């Protein structure tokens, strides 16, 4: 990983070597916004949903519903610089300012739509906006904001609501005998109750065959994205974090047509495999440092990664919460509700299994230790957020364990997913320069300890 010749002029144009297969995947999510607007204008039901790790997405899709995800929409507001007036609207309606930026921007959007524009989409909203919801689907996974903020939206919309369940516990309680079956039973009953609710709401029956078909597609999509992730361990890293973030919606919440998405991910797998075979890096500069980004990115300042790429920083992995794990074997059961329960539960509990094996109580830490070893990581870019507890709370532990156990240093850069005023790219670049010396130092330490990279 030593530095070589300076880049040519053409190479300088693009510091990050984007995957061609990323673009059509990135575009798929746009279609959902357009389809939902169309459905709404035809008087058809539309759903606002939280990321729910698939237990809710697939029944909704099987019922033919059009879905948008306000969390995703908030990233659009941030990246297009249009979030601020919506945040102000949330504040002016009395919501505390310390809460999640995604929540506040959706609340402000809803306030503007319902209280100022009589139900019309705010004209300043990017990609045509989110159509008015006829169902709000909250989720109890990852953070409390994800069902409390939808409950709060009752203030603007009379749309019915549902909150999906997900068991949640730390590593060691998660090792009780029969726990998996007990949790699967709970989740299966919850999924069934949710489907009964949908049937009652829509006055039509679930198309079980369609649901089976979608579950099968989901498993194949996750198999493929998991294989892509595994390939990213190669040196030089073949896929940059920015490409991952741009292409994740069709696997994270199955944006777009799932058959199309599967084909596009298969294309991506071939392209990444090609790069691995030919040792092509994800940056157009010699890979000098292999970095992991944790957790949610500064959507408003993604260009910043170009500057780091120019310095030879290759972001080889990122954001555990956005990655679907290797799917479980669903052939144990023929009940589609149980299949969904197992698929969703797997997201949380597969990291617990690893943590137990390592005797570590914090699964997030374990996850990143494993990644640091597998991906031969030189440093972590930790991005604690002013408005998201869930993605920030464990980062000090990651920082501490990483150095203690693996001699991998971390760069701690405060920022936010929405509020760009908190993030200072200039200052961060200066700190990054100093951090390079730290990474160089610890590389020598690891080598002297025989850690393998």
């Amino acid at each position, binding site marked *: 990983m030593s530095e070589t010749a300076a880049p040519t002029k053409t190479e300088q144009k693009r510091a990050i070597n984007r995957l061609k297969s990323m673009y059509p995947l990135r575009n798929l999510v746009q279609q959902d916004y357009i389809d939902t607007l169309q459905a709404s204008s035809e008087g058809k039901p539309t759903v606002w949903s939280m990321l729910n790790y698939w237990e809710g997405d697939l029944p909704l899709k099987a019922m033919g519903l059009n879905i948008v995800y306000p969390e995703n929409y908030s990233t659009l507001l941030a990246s297009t610089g249009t979030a601020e007036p919506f945040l102000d609207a949330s504040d002016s309606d009395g919501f505390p300012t310390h809460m999640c930026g995604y929540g506040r921007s959706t609340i402000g959007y809803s306030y503007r739509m319902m209280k100022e524009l009589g139900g019309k989409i705010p004209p300043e909203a990017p990609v045509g906006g989110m159509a008015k919801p006829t169902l709000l689907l909250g989720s109890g996974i990852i*953070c409390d904001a994800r069902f409390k903020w939808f409950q709060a939206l009752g203030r603007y919309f009379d749309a019915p609501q549902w*909150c999906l369940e997900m068991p949640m516990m730390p590593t060691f309680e998660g090792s009780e005998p029969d726990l998996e079956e007990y949790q699967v039973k*709970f989740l299966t009953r919850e999924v069934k109750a949710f489907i009964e609710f949908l049937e009652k709401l829509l006055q039509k029956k679930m198309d079980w065959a369609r649901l089976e078909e979608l579950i099968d597609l989901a498993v194949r999509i996750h198999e493929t994205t998991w294989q892509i992730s595994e390939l990213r361990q190669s040196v030089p890293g073949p896929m940059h974090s920015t490409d991952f973030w741009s292409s994740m919606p069709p696997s994270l919440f199955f944006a777009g047509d799932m058959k199309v998405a599967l084909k596009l991910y298969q294309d991506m797998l071939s392209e990444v495999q090609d790069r691995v075979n030919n040792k092509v890096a994800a940056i157009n500069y010699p890979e000098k440092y292999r970095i992991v980004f944790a957790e949610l990115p500064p959507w408003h300042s993604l260009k910043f990664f170009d500057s780091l790429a120019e310095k030879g920083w290759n972001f080889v992995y990122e954001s555990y919460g956005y990655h679907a794990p290797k799917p479980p074997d669903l052939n144990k059961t023929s009940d589609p509700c149980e299949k969904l329960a197992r698929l969703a539960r797997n997201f949380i509990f597969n990291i617990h299994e690893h943590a137990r094996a390592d005797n570590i109580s914090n699964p997030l830490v374990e996850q990143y230790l494993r990644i640091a070893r597998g991906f031969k990581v030189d440093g972590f870019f930790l991005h604690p957020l002013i408005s998201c507890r869930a993605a920030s*709370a464990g980062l000090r532990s990651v920082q501490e364990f990483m150095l203690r156990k693996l001699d991998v240093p971390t760069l701690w850069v405060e920022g936010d997913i929405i509020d760009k005023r908190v993030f200072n790219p200039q200052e961060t670049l200066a700190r990054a320069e100093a951090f390079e010396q730290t990474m160089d130092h610890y590389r020598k330490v690891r080598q002297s300890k025989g850690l393998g990279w």
Partner: protein
Amino acid sequence: MAIAINKGLSLAHDIYEDRGRRVRELRKAGRKTIGYICLYPPVEIITALGMVPFRIFGNMSEPITLADQVSTTVVCPFLRSIIDLGMKGKFDFLDGVVGAHTCDIGAGIIIQWRDYVKDTPFTHLIDVPHTDHPPAVEYFAGQLNSFKRHLEEHAGQKLTDDKLKKAVELHNTQRRLVRQLYDLRKPDPPLLTSAENLEVMVALFSLPVEEGNDLLEDVIKQVSERSDRPGRKKARLLVWGPVFDNTSLFKLIESAGASVVVDDTCVGTRAFWADVKAPYDLQALAQRYLVDIKCPRTYRQAEPAETRRDYDKDLDSRFNYIRKAVVDWNVNGAVLQSVKYCDTHGYEVPNLRHYLDTLGIPSIYIEHDYSERSLAPIKTRVEAFVETLG
């Protein structure tokens, strides 16, 4: 008018000032002590196994120093204060600690305790579902069963039905007595101040249930007979919000010219209003803790699986217990307080204020970072608010 402090209140005050005092004594005498965080670990199971439950609070007057090394500043300062005190060895009299998934950040505290607060032989986290759906109640009963099994191992004894029944009766008695104590603030002026009341509540969380019940009987008798009552104030307020375990806020409000006559916080009514119903088994505990405790951390609907939603009906189904308190305690204003970064309470604020508006109850919302220092700037706002109620 100065209030003479009588015996029961004086004992409560002493325990409030040194919460670990009695628990340390009992531990010396051979009893095991189990700390718990938030309201959701069922104290009945701890009591039934012969151990002393001790509710863990932070300390609003102690600056957070060590916790900054292991947690970020956007984590609820109440939880950060707990970890900070733990790292400083201030809970060294506990043989165990139990947490519950009351909120997602709260759940993570057990992980931090395991990693950074050393020498606690027993730790356990109870998963609490997010809804009160029937499958969730059943799942939660299963969680209580795992907790029971784990604590039995630690206690070296089995939890029999009989022991559980006796413990439930004792805790239900405590709840009944607390409700009686709150009745003493229904008259105008109330018979005790909210700061005195809070000291009693904090003492109850620091004593074995039998001793807490004795204390309550004593306090109720003494307060009912006292001649030196608090003076009459121009407003009768309700205080709402997450954990508030320090008398400073209540003193601040009372010095602004209002009485706090009732609350909806987890150091007050929220902890004591619901009884465990017969038969006193794990299912009944699951029902009491998940369904009957009214904390914003649980998602509730006016009707299960409702396909039409009406905002006013929704608010009434979630907050009508507050309406009842407003009527019963003759409340004419409300102070909504929350610790910063508490999502479960934060999202509730505009909706609850709207609900209070429909009841004709003016309200203010104040935010603090769980430190006495952060209350000072709030004083002027509280005074101005009380002024408007005159």
